[in-house]
């Protein structure tokens, strides 16, 4: 379970993997400075030119799936295929200037040692050059461009990562020089995962848990936390309240690296979106850009799964929505799903129905815990 630092994988990664690193601000500034110098050099060369910006393509066609031979770990990653932003191409000129604009702002923010939200960035840019940034979407997209150019994480650019993630259970952590936090005594409100990714990398962790359980939904998480499920089955509970944000994934990965023997189990809705959430934890996703796959963890699917439906009341199975089918389609075509996952998706599509975790409440509120415990004991996860 030596993930990406496995020498064999490393060899592989050198060939193809592209990723955004978490780097200190001085380093980001240096990268920006190098960009400026290169730009000026090209501008001033004997054959003067305006440099193109080589961005790693964040497109499906540039994504690869790495099924590791040595471990169970698979991930989605972007290879070095580049899509360049050129000033000279008329429909790219705007995007080209945007990249520089955002880089300038980030540079200044890093100098001030501040962090900004994307909204603040938008307002700043709107004020400065409204014609370049008519909407927040332009800003968000350009930030991804800058990430793809400088190959450093958004967080490293001085952009705040607000985390939605929560952690509870048999985990203690300690920021260097601070008090130890015990996640098992925080009640149902649990412990908020901080957005500071640097901090997460430097936490001192300890646990006596046997399992890590990812829960898709906040409400389910709360239920388990209030019932102190983690004392029943020694475990660490993590939720990102839906699709995971970076910070949650970083923490999970951090825990996983520190305690590689703990299986990571996911409890998600039985619908394509639930599986997609699981897969985002497991493999990363293209929309997360270059930051995606570094934090891939070998997550196992605990539930809900097709064979759980038998014990659910018929009324709790609702028809699939069109969006579900789209997601299912996307999952199936990604080439990332292992066989038994594909079977589950096929079953969802074929039955035309979906079920949510809460459907287990049909058997009473305490059934949820029993269900998980039973599954764990029987090693009923894939």
């Amino acid at each position, binding site marked *: 379970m030596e993930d990406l630092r496995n020498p064999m994988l490393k060899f592989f990664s050198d060939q193809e993997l592209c990723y955004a690193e978490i780097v200190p601000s001085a380093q980001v*500034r240096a990268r*920006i*400075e190098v*960009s*400026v*110098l*290169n730009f*000026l*050099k*090209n*501008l*001033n*060369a004997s054959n*003067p*030119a*305006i*440099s*193109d*910006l*080589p961005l790693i*393509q964040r*497109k*499906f066609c540039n994504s690869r*799936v790495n099924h590791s031979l040595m471990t169970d770990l698979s991930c*989605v990653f972007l290879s*070095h*295929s*580049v*899509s*360049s*932003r050129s*000033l*000279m191409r*008329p*429909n*790219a*000129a*705007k*995007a*080209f*200037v945007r990249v*520089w*604009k955002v*880089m*300038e702002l980030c*540079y*200044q923010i890093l*100098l001030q040692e501040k962090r900004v939200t994307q909204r603040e960035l938008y307002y700043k840019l709107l004020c400065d050059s409204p014609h*370049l940034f008519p909407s927040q*979407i332009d800003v968000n*997209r350009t930030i991804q461009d800058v990430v793809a150019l400088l190959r450093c994480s958004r967080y490293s650019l001085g952009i705040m990562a607000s985390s939605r993630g929560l952690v509870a259970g048999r985990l203690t952590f300690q920021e260097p020089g601070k008090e130890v936090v015990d996640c098992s005594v925080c009640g149902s409100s649990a412990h908020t995962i901080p957005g500071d990714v640097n901090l997460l990398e430097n936490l001192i962790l300890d646990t006596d848990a046997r399992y890590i359980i990812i829960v898709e939904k906040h409400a389910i998480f709360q239920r388990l936390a209030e019932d102190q499920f983690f004392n029943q089955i020694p475990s660490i509970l993590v939720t990102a309240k839906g699709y995971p944000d970076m910070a949650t994934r970083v923490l999970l990965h951090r825990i996983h690296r520190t305690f590689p023997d703990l299986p990571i189990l996911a409890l998600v809705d039985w619908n394509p979106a639930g599986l*997609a959430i699981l*897969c*985002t934890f497991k493999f990363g996703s*293209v*929309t997360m850009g270059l930051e995606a796959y570094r934090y891939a963890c070998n997550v196992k699917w605990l539930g809900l799964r097709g064979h759980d439906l038998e014990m659910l009341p018929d009324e709790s199975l609702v028809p699939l929505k069109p969006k579900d089918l789209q*997601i299912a389609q*996307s*999952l199936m075509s*990604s080439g990332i799903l292992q066989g038994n996952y594909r079977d589950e998706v096929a079953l969802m599509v074929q039955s035309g129905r979906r079920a949510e975790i809460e459907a287990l409440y049909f058997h009473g509120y305490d059934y949820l815990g029993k269900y998980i415990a039973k599954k764990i004991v029987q090693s009923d996860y894939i």
Partner: protein
Amino acid sequence: MEFSSVQNLSLHLISSAFQRCRLSEQICRLSVILARSSSSSLRVSISDTGNGSCLEEFQGLRFSSNDDADNWDGMLSIKTTSISDTEIHNYTINLKASDSSKITRLTSNTKNGARFSGSEVCLSSFVSIDLLVAEIHQFLEKMMILSIPNVATHLVAEDCDVPGSRYEKVFLANGDKELPIPASNLDLLKSGLEDYVLRHGNTLSNKCHYCFPNWEQLKVGSGVACSIENHQHNELVMEAVIIISNMPVDNTECFRKYGDKTEVFYFKDFSPGTVSKSLMKALKGIDWKSYGLKLGGIVQQDRLALLEWENLTRDTHVDIVLHSYNKQTVIPGPRKITQTERNLVKRAVKLSLDDLKEKHAGVLLSSHAVQVRSYAPDLAKTIAGLILSSSDLNFQEECFSLLGLQSQVVGTENMENCIRERIVSVIEMNDKKPHKNKVAPSLFVDDRAQELEFEENDMEEGEDDLDLQLF
């Protein structure tokens, strides 16, 4: 060639005389004298000191006016002699008669051994003297654009019934300019059009110092396209000259006859020609857009073609002259514009536009480059901002030196201007060689150049955020 009015015939005769002068190696004189005697008939006399004329020139002429106002008998009297002739030949030609009875040879005069050449053609008609003077004047002024250097034209008009009505004017090409010797036809054409522009066309007799304090403001481009036609070693030449001039916008005194529109001058075989539909089609077919010009349409007014532009700034004016001639033909006959010629027009115009663009930075930028250039200030400001906001002095110093700036005197504006200028110049340069397709250097030295997949369509704004594309 058939004429239906005395005016047109007169212009043709003048043109012919002009050609005889042009082909002579000597400095020649062409006199056009219009005199109304008391008999109230107008005597038109066209005399030149060019090569002598040959009868064939006149044999082809025909006159068939339905208009009695001319009231002309159709009789031309001709005197001519070439340098090698020993006598002066005299003829009368009846342009209304049939071919056989047309030419009457009269007794010749002896030259008494003198070596000179020249011709004189006379006719008498009741045509209006004012009208004729005006047309001949305009014709000769247009001829000036050709800048034929060895012909001096003298126009005299006198109504004997009106005392003191004598009108006289001399047309001399390139009055105050030095031209390379020997000057090519194209050089002469350029010079002639420059002269024309500087004098606001016909409206001034001298260069307008108000509008053009310095000569260099004119941006001139020229191009020549040739083609060998019919395998007869008959090389057709198309010369084009385009001048872009800028006048002060607040100038209310000087004005162009046709406003912002561009009059296209067209010469055929060294004589002003009419812009035909065919030619207009060729002009329309030019890819003006790639030069940042947007042709609104072509207006035909009198015998002129006026190009209307849609995106020209108010102070900019474009002038175009086209000259097509056969390199070998000495005495040109009537000639239709062919497909070849249309292609030549396009090529010649394009070459002169390219010439202009090459010689003058920032002129005739493609609309695409203009758009890209509009980002230059933003980009310059951003990069200057990046440099100046840095706390790393070494980095700043390095940037200054790359930009060739003294670090002591660098202000924000200074820096911005410097970067902007460079960016603009790169953009403009790129626009000049549009088909060269050189790969732009990547921002980072990249040894994986072969991996660069340029995808034209990966740039759309709609980009990669398809949210269903999860992996």
